[in-house]
C-alpha cells in the first residue's frame, strides 16, 4: 500500500504542483507559482493547425505528428490484426505455431525492434537491396520526412499487431462453431458470413481493441525514438518524446511545461480509458 | 440471523441440525466452531465459556461441505498439516495418521492428491483430518451433499458406525430429513433462525410440536385438513375446542367401504407400495400410501378412514394439541 501511495498517488499531486510552477529547478519548494502560465504557453496559438504560429511550436508539431500517427497506425493495425485473427481462426494446420509467429514481435523490446528495423532501413540495408533486385532506385528511408513517418507507423504495427490479433482471435473463438455450421448449411458466402455473423458478434471485442490501440498509440515513444530519434528534423517526434525532452533531455529543461503537457495527454488518455472501461462492461454484459 | 437459541448438546451425542435452506443451521454450526462470532449470547464447551475464543483453540474439528482439502498437498500432508501447526512430535503425528488411515481404510491413498481421489475418498480424508486432531466434538456441515445418491447411503451407514465406535460428540448439519432421521440421537429442527423442536427422531415423527415440524418430517408430506374436511375421519365434537387443523400422515389412511371420499388423480405403483394422489370434494389435495399393490385408476372414487390415534391436531397458531 505504501508503495502504491508513493509511486502512484503522490505523483499525481506533484504533477499538478509542477505544472503550475515555473523555472528549471527540480526541487519543488524552490519553484515559483505561475498558475496557468505553463498551460497558456502550450495552448496559445494564432492558428492551432500551423505549429509555427504557436508560442511552443514544438508541442504542436508533436501534437499533430501524434494525431497523424494515431489515425494511420490504429487503422492499419486493426485491419491487419483483424485479417490475421480471421485467418488464424480458419481451419489451418499448426495453428499454435502460426499464432506464435505473429505474437513473437510483441515480446521484443522496443529498443530491439527499433534497432532491427534501423538496420534494415539503412541506405545499404536489406530493404534497398530487395528494391535493387527488382531494379528500383534505393530510398533514403529514415532521412526522408514522409518515408520516416511511414516507417515509424509500419514498425510500430509490426511490433504490436500480434497482441491485438490474439485478443481478436480469442473473441472469434468465443463465437460458437455451430453458428458457422448453420450458415454453411444455408450456403452463405464467406463474405456474407463475415459481414452478417462474424462482424456483429465480434463488434464488442473489436471496439475494445480499437480503444486499447488508441490509448497505446497516443503514448508512442520508445521504438520510434530508437528508430529515428524523432527525425529527420521533427517529422517523427511524438508527444511522449516532447515530454521526455522538455522535462529531462534538453539543456533548458522545463519540468513545469513537461508536466503540463503530460497532464494534457493524461486527460485524453483518461477519457479514452473511461470509454474503454465502459465498453468492457458493456461487452461483458452482452 | 439467529434468535433466542437455547440448546445443550450432551457428551457423545449425535445431534443433527435440520431445516430448510436459510434456516440458520449452518450459521449455528459456524458459531459453535468459532468461525463466526455471535452478536450476543454465550457459547460454552465442557463448561468453559468460549464465546471469544478463536476457532483453532476451541477444540471441535470441522468437516466442510466442500471438504476443503488442500489441493496442493498429499493426503498425508493434509492430515498432518494441523498437527504440525500444533508442534506435535513427528512420531505422534505418524501414529495418529496411521490410526485414522486404518479406521477409514485410506492407507493406500496417503501419497495421492485430492484431485486424484473419488468423491467418497475425499469425504473420508476430510473426516480423517478431523479424527487425527482428537477433537472434543465433530462438526459436520452437509458432508454428504456432494456425493451421488448411492454413495450417500453407504457413507451414511459408515458415519453411523464411526460414531458408534468413537463415541464422540457429533453435530451434523443437513437439509435432508432422511439423513437426520437415520443418524441422529437427537434432531434440532430450525426455521427462520429459531428452534422449532428438539427431540429424538421417533418423538419428532410421532409427536411433532407444531405444523411446521409435522410437515417437514416424513415423506410423503403429512396431509393437512380443515376441521370440516376431517369430519369424515373424526367428528368435530370429538376434537378439542381450540383445534383449527387436523393432520394425518399418508401411511395412516386405511381403505374402507365408507368414510372420507377421495377422487383419484394419479396412482403411482412402486411395487412394494402404492402412492395415490387425489382430491377431496372441497378440492383439497391428499396423498395416501399403502403397502403392497392396490388397484386404483384416475377418476375412481375411494373411501378411507384414519388409523386410530394417528391424527395430529393443531390450534390456530399451528401448535400441537394433545388429546
Amino acid at each position, binding site marked *: 500500500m505504501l508503495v502504491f501511495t508513493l509511486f502512484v498517488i503522490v505523483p499525481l499531486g506533484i504533477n499538478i504542483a509542477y505544472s503550475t510552477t515555473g523555472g528549471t529547478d527540480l526541487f519543488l519548494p524552490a519553484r515559483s507559482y505561475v498558475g496557468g502560465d505553463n498551460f497558456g504557453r502550450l495552448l496559445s496559438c494564432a492558428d492551432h493547425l500551423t505549429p509555427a504560429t504557436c508560442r511552443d511550436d514544438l508541442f504542436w508539431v508533436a501534437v499533430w505528428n501524434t494525431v497523424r500517427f494515431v489515425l494511420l497506425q490504429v487503422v492499419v493495425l486493426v485491419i491487419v490484426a483483424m485479417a490475421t485473427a480471421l485467418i488464424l481462426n480458419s481451419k489451418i494446420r499448426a495453428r499454435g505455431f502460426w499464432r506464435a509467429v505473429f505474437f513473437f514481435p510483441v515480446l521484443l523490446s522496443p529498443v530491439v525492434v527499433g534497432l532491427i528495423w534501423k538496420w534494415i532501413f539503412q541506405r*545499404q540495408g536489406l530493404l534497398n537491396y530487395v528494391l535493387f533486385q527488382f531494379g528500383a532506385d534505393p530510398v533514403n528511408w529514415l532521412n526522408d520526412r514522409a518515408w520516416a513517418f511511414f516507417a515509424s507507423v509500419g514498425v510500430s504495427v509490426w511490433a504490436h499487431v500480434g497482441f491485438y490479433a490474439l485478443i481478436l482471435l480469442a473473441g472469434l473463438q468465443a463465437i460458437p462453431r455451430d453458428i458457422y455450421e448453420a450458415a454453411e448449411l444455408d450456403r452463405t458466402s464467406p463474405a456474407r458470413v463475415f459481414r452478417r455473423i462474424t462482424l456483429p458478434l465480434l463488434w464488442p471485442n473489436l471496439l475494445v481493441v480499437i480503444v486499447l490501440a488508441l490509448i497505446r498509440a497516443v503514448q508512442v515513444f520508445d521504438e520510434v525514438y530508437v528508430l529515428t530519434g524523432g527525425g529527420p528534423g521533427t517529422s517523427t517526434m511524438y508527444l511522449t518524446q516532447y515530454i521526455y525532452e522538455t522535462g529531462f533531455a534538453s539543456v533548458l529543461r522545463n519540468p513545469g511545461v513537461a508536466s503540463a503537457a503530460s497532464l494534457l495527454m493524461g486527460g485524453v488518455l483518461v477519457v479514452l480509458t473511461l470509454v474503454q472501461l465502459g465498453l468492457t462492461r458493456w461487452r461483458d454484459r452482452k | 440471523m439467529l434468535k433466542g437459541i437455547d440448546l445443550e448438546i450432551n457428551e457423545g451425542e449425535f445431534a443433527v441440525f435440520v431445516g430448510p435452506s436459510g434456516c440458520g443451521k449452518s450459521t449455528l454450526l459456524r458459531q459453535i466452531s468459532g468461525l463466526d462470532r455471535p452478536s450476543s449470547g454465550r457459547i460454552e464447551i465442557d463448561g468453559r465459556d468460549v464465546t471469544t475464543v478463536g476457532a*483453532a483453540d476451541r477444540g471441535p474439528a470441522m468437516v466442510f461441505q466442500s471438504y476443503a482439502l488442500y489441493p496442493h498437498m498429499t493426503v498425508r500432508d493434509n492430515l498432518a498439516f494441523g498437527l504440525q501447526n500444533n508442534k506435535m512430535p513427528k512420531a505422534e503425528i505418524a501414529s495418529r495418521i496411521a490410526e485414522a488411515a486404518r479406521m477409514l481404510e485410506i492407507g493406500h491413498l496417503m501419497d495421492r492428491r485430492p484431485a486424484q481421489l473419488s468423491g467418497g475418498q475425499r469425504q473420508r480424508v476430510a473426516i480423517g483430518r478431523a479424527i487425527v486432531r482428537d477433537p472434543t466434538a465433530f462438526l459436520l456441515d452437509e458432508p454428504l451433499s456432494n456425493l451421488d445418491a448411492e454413495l450417500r447411503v453407504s457413507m451414511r451407514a459408515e458415519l453411523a458406525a464411526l460414531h458408534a465406535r468413537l463415541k464422540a460428540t457429533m453435530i451434523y448439519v443437513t437439509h435432508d430429513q432422511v439423513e437426520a432421521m437415520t443418524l441422529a440421537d437427537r434432531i434440532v429442527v430450525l426455521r427462520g433462525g429459531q428452534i422449532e423442536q428438539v427431540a429424538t427422531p421417533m418423538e419428532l415423527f410421532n409427536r411433532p410440536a407444531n405444523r411446521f415440524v409435522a410437515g417437514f418430517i416424513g415423506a410423503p408430506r403429512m396431509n393437512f385438513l380443515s376441521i370440516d374436511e376431517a369430519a369424515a375421519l373424526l367428528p368435530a365434537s370429538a376434537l378439542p375446542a381450540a383445534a383449527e387443523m387436523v393432520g394425518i400422515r399418508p401411511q395412516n389412511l386405511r381403505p374402507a367401504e365408507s368414510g372420507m371420499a377421495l377422487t383419484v388423480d394419479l396412482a403411482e405403483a412402486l411395487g412394494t407400495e402404492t402412492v395415490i394422489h387425489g382430491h377431496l370434494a372441497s378440492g383439497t389435495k391428499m396423498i395416501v400410501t399403502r403397502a403392497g399393490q392396490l388397484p386404483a385408476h384416475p377418476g375412481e372414487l375411494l373411501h378411507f378412514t384414519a388409523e386410530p390415534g394417528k391424527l395430529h391436531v393443531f390450534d390456530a397458531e399451528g401448535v400441537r394439541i394433545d388429546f
Partner: protein
Amino acid sequence: MRLIPFLARRRGGKGWHWTDIVTWVWLAAGLVVIFGPALWLLLSSFKTPAQLAEFPLSILPYASQTALVETKGGPKQLPLFTVDLPEGGTAVMAELNRIGIMANMVRPEAPDQVLKVNIDARKPLREMAFATENYTKPLKEFDFGRYLWNSVFVTVAATLITLITNSMAAFALSKYEFRGRNSVMLIIVATLMIPLSVNLVPLYSVVSWLGLLNNLWGVILPTVATPTGVFMLRQYMLTILDELLEAARMDKASEWQIYWRIVLPLTAPALAVLAIFSVVWRWNDFLWPLIVLSRKELFTLQIGLNTFAGKLNVQWQFILAMTVVSIIPVLIVFIFLQRFTTAGIAGTGLK
C-alpha cells in the same frame, strides 16, 4: 522440398478455394515479414564490418580466405582471389597490392611471378565464417558485460519483489473484509488508467527525493507497484474457496502460514503468468531507466544499446551482436510460454 506439400495439404481434402490461397499468402508473408528481420539480424551479427559495408549484400556471413605468402618483405597473410587468366581458365591467386583498377597478384606457390590483373577479372575467394568477435569484444572490452549484469539484476529483483508485494496485496484484498477495501480497489483501477508517460516528471522527483537517481533500485521500485498484477492475482484468489482458509484456520495455521502454505501455492499458475509478464516488461523497459540512469556503468542492456547506436561512428557489427544477446532471455520466455500454455490446457483436465 517436403515442406510445400505439407503446407499445401488441407484439412478436409476438398478443392482449393480462393480463401485458402489468401490464407496461405497471408501466412507466408507474415512468416517472412516477422521472422525475416529477426533472421537477418542474426545473420548480420556474424558478419565482419567490411562485409556489413558491402553492397550488393550476401545473405550468409563470409570471410575472405587468406594464404601465407613468401613476399620480398617476408611472409604475409594475403587475401585470395579467383582470377580469370588472360590465356583462359582460372587460378587462385593472392593480392600483393592494388593500384587503381589494377592489382598485382601472385600464385601462393610461386610468389616471384607477379601478374597484373584488372579487378573486374577476379572474385574474392570466401568461405562461410562467423565473426564471433562481434560478441566477445563488446562483452569483454566494452561495458556490455556490465550492462547485461545490470539488466539481469533489475529484472530478477523487480520480478521477485513484484510477486511478493502484489500477492500480499491481492491476498488482503480478496480474503479479508476491512473498511475501505472497495476504495482501495477503486484506487487500483484508477491507477491502471494513468500510464508512466503521464507521470514521468513527478515520479522522477519522488525517486530523486529518495536519493535513488543513478541507482538500480530507482529503476526497480517504481515498477514494482503494478496494479495489473494485483488485479490479476486478486481475480485468481477470489476463486479459492473460503472454506479452505477456514479449514486451515481450524488447523491452527497462522495468517502468515495461510498465505505462505495455502494461498501462495494455490495461486501458482497466476503467479507464473505474472512472473513471465514481469520478466519481459522489466527486461524490455526503456523510457524509465533512460531517465533515471545517466551514469554509464549503471546502464541496462537496452539503454546501453541505444546509447551505443546513437554514437556518431556507429559500429553496427557490435550493435547487431548485442541486440541478439538481448533477445535471448525473451526467446527463452517465448519458448517457455508456448509450453506453458499447452501445459495449462492439460492442467485444466486434472482439476
